[in-house]
């Protein structure tokens, strides 16, 4: 990070304000029975950054993703994307507004081809409506989408698999496909839930390049990761959760030295997380 980065002046403390937040959450709470899975006072995500979300298993990271993307409903709280409130907005609408998520357990559409996986994600195809499907007139859009999909597949090294069933891909390839598919929607914010989990080390590096590439292409990336080395390498900002709360945030160097983090997380998890 160069010193001229807009985040340079931001204090490394939980709930701190950022100069240009794309995503803001206030007083977000979700409990399951007696368990408080998410309890966040204030959280902002700076535009055009790679923000890592770390924390031990069960810290509430996936639940937070679910809440922010409309897959789950909070007991309390509100959040905005680009100033637009997202409370009560259905998950598919959130995706259309430009915040797209992936899942911790990969969700490939197994009995669709890789190409069809990509094409499903394309926006505004009038052939996706019943009337359009019956009357036709969607082939031009389809062709343009296919071209874009081919480009993305090439970027992710999957173009040779375009006509295979997605169910036939390896675990790592599915992760790549899921990411490529999310990009097909031209999102503004990409939320990746453990994109590195279960991926063999050879692929990890290329995934990382893709993630930083997204930032450089003007997108905002929020991603969940366990491996501190990876986090150190590519993040602009790190948010640490434990027991549903944000216990620390700051640039990666500061987080690595943070006592609270070491106690809550690194102390017990650093060793095993890399496995």
């Amino acid at each position, binding site marked *: 990070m160069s010193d001229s980065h807009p985040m340079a002046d931001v204090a490394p403390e939980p709930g701190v304000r950022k100069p240009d937040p794309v995503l803001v959450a206030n007083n977000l709470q979700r409990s*399951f029975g007696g368990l408080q899975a998410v309890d966040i006072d204030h959280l902002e995500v700076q535009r055009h950054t790679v923000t890592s979300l770390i924390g031990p298993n069960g810290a509430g990271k*996936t639940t937070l993703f*679910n809440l922010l993307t409309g*897959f789950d409903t909070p007991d309390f709280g509100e959040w905005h994307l680009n100033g637009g409130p997202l409370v009560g907005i259905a998950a598919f609408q959130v995706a259309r507004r430009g915040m797209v998520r992936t899942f*911790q357990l990969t969700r490939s559409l197994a009995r669709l081809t890789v190409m069809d996986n990509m094409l499903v994600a394309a926006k505004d195809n009038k052939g996706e409506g019943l009337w359009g499907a019956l009357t036709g007139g969607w082939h031009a859009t389809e062709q343009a989408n296919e071209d874009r999909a081919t480009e993305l597949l090439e970027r992710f090294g999957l173009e040779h698999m375009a006509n295979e069933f997605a169910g036939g891909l390896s675990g790592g390839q599915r992760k790549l496909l899921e990411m490529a598919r999310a990009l097909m929607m031209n999102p503004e914010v990409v939320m990746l839930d453990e994109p590195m989990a279960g991926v063999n080390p050879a692929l990890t590096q290329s995934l990382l390049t893709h993630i930083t590439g997204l930032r450089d292409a003007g997108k905002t990336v929020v991603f969940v990761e366990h491996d501190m080395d990876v986090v150190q390498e590519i993040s602009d900002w790190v948010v640490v959760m434990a027991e549903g709360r944000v216990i620390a945030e700051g640039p990666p160097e500061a987080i690595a030295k943070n006592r609270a983090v070491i106690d809550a997380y690194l102390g017990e998890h650093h060793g095993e997380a890399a496995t």
Partner: protein
Amino acid sequence: MFWLAAFAIAALSPVASLATGESIGGKLIQTVGEERIPTAGVTIIVRQEGSEIGRGESDSEGSWEIPVPGAGVYQVTLDTTTLPDGVGLTNPDAAELPDVNVREGQAKKVIFPLGEGTTSSVSSYERVGALFISGLKLGAIIALCAVGLSLVYGVTGLVNFAHAEMVTLGAVTAYFFHASPVGPQWSLLVASVPAILVGAGFGWLQETAIWRPLRARHMGLVSMMVVSIGLSFAVRHLILIIFGGEPRAYPDFAGQPPIEILGVSVVPKNLITIGVALLVLAGVGLFLQKSRAGTAMRAVSDDADLAESSGIDVNRIILITWSLAGGLAALGGIFFGLNEAVQWDMGFSLLLLIFAAVVLGGLGTAYGAMVGGFVVGVIVEMSTLFVPNELKTAVGLVVLIVMLLVRPQGLFGTKERIG
């Protein structure tokens, strides 16, 4: 050619054509001493499988005739509230003729002997009270059946559509040991033991022969449900082939005279049904809370992977659950047969209400299914205060849908996990 046409009709519409003109009729004559007086204006109702086919009124000569759609077995009821004052059935228990067999083309005649009756009017308190008791009884039966369905769902995630056949199997097996001419003719109490064992055994067999191998193949749940409904369909018709299509009653406890409790007349076997069911359900509750297998069952329901990794033999627990579910369903079936009739599709006809109960309580929660069973039973029976009797099963569907709209996870359930 004609042969084929007859064939096609038989396959598609079990109700034969109208042209043959089957009917049920009779003459209502009151006998007082030597005198014979025709009784007019009395309502007679014909039903089939509980739903009304038609009704008619006796004319000035006491004659009545009600057309029926075809050959078959019908129930004919005389509505005693429409008898004139001072006229009553010579046998007050014979207001309903449970199986009137009409042959093809036949104008069947039936007789209701009338004499000087003492007509008693039923107060609305008594009616509500009696319905409440039947509601509890029906609820007890539903609860017994529903718990097993919910437990199996909890540990395997499968809604087992063949659960209904475990209910029927219990009732039919008990009938074999109790009343079949080729069976040992034990009392119903004794016959219940092998019936429950057969029910449990069927649960055990299903899990071992079908469900465990399919889980091992990673078959998806949707496909598994298709398999389970196929199984249900096959077993149901196998029972039909072996047991026959007619409804039959257990000779034991048949025609029990009612007793009076708090001014409500109750048949003792209803109370026994409710009592035994409550005891058994309490036993299931204790088993789940206290026993090792029971706690393990709850753990597997919560999170099978976690349970597996904490050293629980998940497959063994699932097997126990299936056997328990089969046994409970069989017991429910015996009570159902005791209170209604033993019939090849009795379980299937109860399935809708079982589902309503399970959804009401929360799919996968054992206690929810128990409470749901009783609630559904009472709602369905009490609803007959407002809707015709033949529509009461449809009330169960209304309960189901309203619950799904209002609180899909049920009274006791929690929302499912995403991500």
